[in-house]
């Protein structure tokens, strides 16, 4: 009788779909565990300067001067980066971020924070001194086994300041220190904003690279003297800025911008002074950015003030580089207005055209996303 009851119960339990529910729970928990386990182990590799070891002090004079050994012997930038990533480990949801010494059999993937660009522009106007600090970083996932860059997330931060007196190197150093590691660190805020998208790209994922940036003649008069003399340095900033916006807006897997276009190597000098050279693999798709120029037009003028429109003019081309298959090729323009009181004798135009350029970048990215061909054939394939 008892046995019969058990059988009956089992039959009715089966009939009521209990087994099916259990199976569903089991499958879901298995899939969740599988998803968790499919997250790749990535070891934190530290802070690095991009470029030749001998050029670190020349290319990053202020940042490298900050990188002095701390109490435990770790260089300053390496320590603050490590502390930040350790503290916010869980925010990097797309990978298992590991710390410590990686064994050969653990993983070949390493996450590194690299400083790629340091620009300090000091200008003197009639009544004030101006300071612009532009820092470019790359969050790089590197494959140490193949010595190859897997993917990168460009990060661009900027600080504009003004004062009655000129800015000394130590004053600039303090500001850079704050931008990187202060209480309101711009750098770490930017990294956290992208943390859930930083991940190793899958084997079949396509990549996008900003291949060429050209600065037109008509852009030069609006640039500070230092950048006017070295348009290539400005091109690096433009690539960094556009890449940072593109990765944020479109969530695509990027490869680092190579300054000379054809260079497929990227050397990183880590905080412990070790230098490792990585290969930048051939990108599936390329983007050329042509900053054609800036223009200002007087819109309205009264005795008290004048309304000027500053425009940025761009050309954006998205293509497949091996067979030169074009996907997107369009001019983009964007204007910002600026009211200038008639009493103001000097106008600092660089921040205004920079704002117009940023607007043009966002418009271009928007156009790229709206364009069905580019969206379907390029962006979707590169989305992380």
């Amino acid at each position, binding site marked *: 009788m008892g046995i019969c009851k058990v059988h009956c119960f089992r039959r009715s339990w089966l009939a009521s779909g209990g087994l099916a529910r259990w199976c569903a729970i089991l499958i879901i928990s298995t899939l969740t565990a599988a998803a968790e386990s499919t997250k790749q182990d990535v070891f934190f590799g530290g802070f690095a300067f991009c470029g030749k070891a001998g050029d670190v002090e020349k290319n990053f004079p202020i940042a490298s001067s900050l990188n002095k050994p701390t109490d435990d012997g770790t260089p300053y930038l390496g320590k603050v980066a490590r502390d930040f990533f350790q503290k916010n480990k869980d925010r990097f949801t797309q990978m298992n971020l590991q710390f410590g010494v990686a064994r050969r059999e653990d993983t070949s993937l390493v996450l590194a924070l690299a400083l790629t660009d340091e620009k300090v522009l000091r200008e003197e106007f009639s009544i004030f001194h101006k300071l612009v600090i532009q820092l470019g970083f790359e969050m790089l996932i590197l494959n140490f086994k193949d010595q190859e860059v897997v993917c990168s997330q460009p990060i661009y931060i900027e600080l504009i300041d003004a004062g009655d007196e000129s800015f000394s190197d130590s004053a600039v150093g303090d500001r850079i220190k704050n931008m990187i590691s202060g209480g309101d660190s711009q750098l770490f805020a930017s990294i956290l904003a992208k943390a859930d998208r930083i991940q190793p790209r899958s084997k079949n994922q396509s990549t996008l690279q900003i291949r060429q940036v050209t600065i037109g003649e008509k852009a030069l008069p609006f640039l500070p003297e230092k950048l006017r003399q070295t348009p290539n340095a400005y091109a690096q900033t433009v690539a960094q800025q556009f890449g940072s916006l593109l990765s944020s807006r479109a969530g695509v897997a990027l490869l680092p911008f190579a300054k000379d276009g054809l260079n497929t190597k990227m050397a990183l000098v880590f905080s412990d002074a070790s230098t490792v050279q990585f290969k930048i693999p051939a990108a*599936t798709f390329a983007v050329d950015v042509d900053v054609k120029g800036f223009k200002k037009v007087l819109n309205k003028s009264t005795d008290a003030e004048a309304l000027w429109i500053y425009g940025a003019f761009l050309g954006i081309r998205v293509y497949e580089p091996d067979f030169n*298959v074009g996907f997107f090729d369009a001019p983009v323009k964007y204007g910002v207005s600026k009211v200038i009181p008639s009493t103001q004798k000097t106008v600092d135009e660089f921040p205004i055209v920079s704002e117009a350029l940023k607007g043009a970048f966002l418009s271009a990215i928007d156009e790229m996303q709206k364009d069905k061909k580019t969206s379907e054939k390029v962006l979707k394939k590169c989305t992380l």
Partner: protein
Amino acid sequence: MHTIIRSLLFVVLACTLTAQAEMVKVKGKGEIVYKSNIFKQGQGSDEERAAITEAKKNALTRYTADFDSARFELFKKIEPDVLANIDQYVPDYTQIDSQVDKSSKRYTVVIEASINTTMIENAINKSSGANAPVAAGAAPAKAGGNYMTFVFVARELASRKDYDAKRTTVEINESSQAGAQKNKIAEDAQSAETSVDKTSVVKQTTGGNTETKAEELGYRVMTVTEVDNAVNSVLTKANYEVVDPVDAGLNVDSFKADFSSGSDISPATRTAAIKNCKDKEIMYIAIANMDVGLSEKDEATGLTRVYVTVTAKVSDLAPKFPKTVASIAGKPYAGLGSNAQVARQNALNEAATRSASELVDQLRMKGVK
């Protein structure tokens, strides 16, 4: 339940196999002329599949274009089989673009193909292995395989004696005088005046020769365990029966002594080595000298770079007179490192592995197994 377990095992197995295979991404372009009047993309038609196949073949061609000549010749042997089974060698692809030209009825597709390079390597190894058919005109493989021994010595400049140029100068001086005497007699014939105009010419001829005596170079010669291991590994993987030179009875010190002052081994060393090998039925001997250059700074990375130049020769000892079956003439390989010692070691390892691979490719091309 069994089905689920089977499926899971299959997935695990597939993942394991995928993890072992090395994939390289290469782009390819395929084009076909379609016959039907209407061509619709994305239907998975035979014509679309044919275009994809063409694109895969194009990607493979682009990949093999980087092979050196010996490797390319080996690939040529297996190419028909690879092309016939292209889906196995190119198991995966991403379609980048496709276009239809209605006027010429052409359908073009661009893909990024994942090429299974491990499978291609295996196919090359198999085709040139013990059971492979022998190429026309090549020596047939002997049963049980043939033994091979090798001596790879590294050397770096220890001393350099430069001689001053010897200059011999010959100087010939010639001088001559030419002149005219004028006599002038006065009208009264009582007095006369004589004047002489003289021109002297001095001719100097210089010549001679400069004799420059060739510099005398002295090398520090060594055998490197890592180099031996690297060469051994390449030869063993290629199924050659490798014999340690000491076991083969070779006097490695005499090779070192010969390479310490010149770029070739002496007849005595060579004769003794050949005799020893023949006595022990070792059919092939590979001899290489690796010149380690001076360290220099690599401009791209700031690291130290060292070049190693390899000159190597493999001799077949089976015929009455040994004949060269593979050779490398002065090929440079670079190594980078944080200091000169690390760079030198990296360059030697790179040179050993790559030169041994190149020799193996040349041997396989000639059907030497």
